[in-house]
């Protein structure tokens, strides 16, 4: 991969405008899809490219598009999940604010591929600048007839509806997001039926993450073979990594899937922030994935390699912690987040997240017992896999990994009756 692909445009002046995007070859992918290919041909191209979903699960995008029935008496809908809110993740916001047309081009191509006449973008409520950039970009598209009736003079018509969330992490879960668009509480639905069969408004629906869609125009423009040559086998294409925590240069970095995590931390991220500090732990994929100890962290950052290391690539939100970090306090912060964001439908998650947060709170404040440490692990084990959606797992995975990998630190808190790092919050 020579030079950035997804971030090629973001540094340019006026990067969010249609004119700037077009000057860099923008909407040639839509032209090729609509003029030269049938919907099935578009899906085939994305399958051959090997693109896997960038929202966290890494599911093959072309295969997902293929699940939507090619003939349907009901309307079909295409949804862009722009509800980015996994702690440590800030790549989709950058793409929407600085290069919204790249995302919209992917949305148009995907909508054409599954035969959707209406597409929805659900932007997180806290992202006012991203919402503004997308609204302006959609107006430009309407004016230039890249959406609306008869796109590019073909028989294909598309309307794009821009939605704004209102503060609920759970709406990043695909079926909760659909409930939210329908004007209800963001309560995830039991699956099956899967969205491809019965999604938004009870109709076949496909949903993809912002970054996933940003990859699509490049596949159509430059071909599946070119795309498949980037990254590693079964983990193809460019990826955005979000670097945060104790780094000299935090930020969004573009590199192929399979880049070394230590290259991200020590080269792109500039190394550790405090002089003389040592790396203690890394969360590789947003706060919901298992933490890695420093000695486990020299791994390749692709879906399969991170899974082999016992964690998940997730949203590629890389949170770096040095040796002055209290792991009990860090886990407390994570658990308070999930306890607050549990939607309350399923008992194991609603009760379990709060209990785990309370137990870790008392350990951090010097009032814990040694039996509490195993209790956290036990409660987490009773949440995992026992809920409608993965939010419960998202709290249980960090809880188990922190307790198991940094057990000495939890024990130390209990025996001293205080936080050895002097935290009082």
């Amino acid at each position, binding site marked *: 991969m020579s030079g950035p692909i997804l971030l090629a445009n973001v540094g340019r002046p006026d990067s969010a405008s249609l004119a700037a995007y077009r000057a860099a070859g923008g909407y040639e992918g839509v032209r090729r899809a609509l003029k030269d290919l049938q919907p099935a041909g578009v899906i085939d191209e994305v399958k051959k490219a090997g693109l896997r979903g960038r929202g966290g699960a890494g599911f093959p995008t072309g295969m997902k598009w293929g699940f939507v029935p090619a003939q349907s008496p009901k309307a079909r809908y295409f949804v862009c999940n722009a509800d980015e809110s996994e702690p440590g993740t800030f790549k989709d916001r950058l793409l929407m604010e600085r290069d919204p047309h790249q995302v919209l081009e992917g949305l148009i191509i995907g909508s054409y591929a599954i035969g959707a006449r209406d597409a929805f973008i659900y932007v997180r409520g806290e992202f006012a600048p991203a919402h503004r950039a997308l609204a302006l970009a959609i107006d430009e598209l309407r004016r230039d007839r890249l959406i609306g009736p008869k796109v590019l003079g073909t028989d294909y018509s598309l309307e794009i509806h821009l939605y704004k969330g*209102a503060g609920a992490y759970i709406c990043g879960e695909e079926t909760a997001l659909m409930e939210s668009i329908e004007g209800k509480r963001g309560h995830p639905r039991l699956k099956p039926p899967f969205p491809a069969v019965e999604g938004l408004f009870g109709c076949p629906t496909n949903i993809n993450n912002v970054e996933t869609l940003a990859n699509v125009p490049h596949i159509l423009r430059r071909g599946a073979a070119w795309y498949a040559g980037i990254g590693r086998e079964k983990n193809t294409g460019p990826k955005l990594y979000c670097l945060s925590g104790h780094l000299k240069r935090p930020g969004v970095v573009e590199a192929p899937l399979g880049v070394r995590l230590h290259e991200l931390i020590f080269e792109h991220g500039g190394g550790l922030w405090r*002089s003389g500090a040592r790396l203690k732990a890394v969360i590789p994929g947003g706060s919901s994935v298992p933490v890695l100890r420093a000695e486990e962290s020299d791994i390749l950052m692709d879906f399969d390699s991170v899974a082999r290391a016992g964690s998940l690539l997730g949203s590629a939100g890389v949170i770096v912690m040095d040796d002055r970090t209290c792991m009990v306090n860090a886990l407390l*912060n994570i658990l308070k987040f999930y306890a607050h964001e549990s939607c309350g439908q399923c008992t194991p998650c609603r009760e379990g997240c709060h209990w785990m947060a309370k137990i870790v709170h008392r350990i951090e404040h010097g009032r814990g017992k040694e039996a509490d440490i195993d209790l956290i692990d036990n409660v987490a084990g009773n949440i995992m896999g026992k809920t409608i959606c993965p939010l419960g797992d998202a709290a249980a995975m960090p809880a188990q990994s922190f307790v198991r990998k940094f057990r000495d630190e939890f024990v130390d808190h209990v025996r001293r009756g205080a936080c050895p790092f002097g935290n009082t919050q």
Partner: protein
Amino acid sequence: MIRPEIEKQIDALVARLPRPQAAMLPALHLIQDDLGHVPVPAREWLAGKLGVSPAAVEAVLSFYTLYRREPGGKYVLHVCSTLPCALRGCEQVFEYLEKILGVEAGGTTADGRFTLKRAECLGACDQAPVLQANGEFHERIAELNPETGAVSFERLEAILENLK
């Protein structure tokens, strides 16, 4: 209560969406942006407009944290409190704000200028610590010295000064 311009925008939403209830979230945003919060009569009005029960509106309003059922300060400050910001000093920022504003989380200053709230990850972790004032981002609002742990609040003071 609901101005004609707002009603017109809500009618347009209802007309272009597959179901009237799908206009719920955008309609609540429109009402709140106009009135500062969503008062009870507006909730009942919206229920009638969308053909749903008042309880259906209440259910949505009480679920999503950005909707306000009560009036708040002129500026609502959301201070990000999630892990990446916590690693870069957001707790010191929050304590500082509680002290100089004289309110705790959720409180509004006596002059009605500020409401102070904690926010979950605002998606600006590389610019930590961050806050939003009425939805607009303010980044790197304090400088935490990595070696001494001392925090400088100059930028935060300037931000507050500008929010008149």
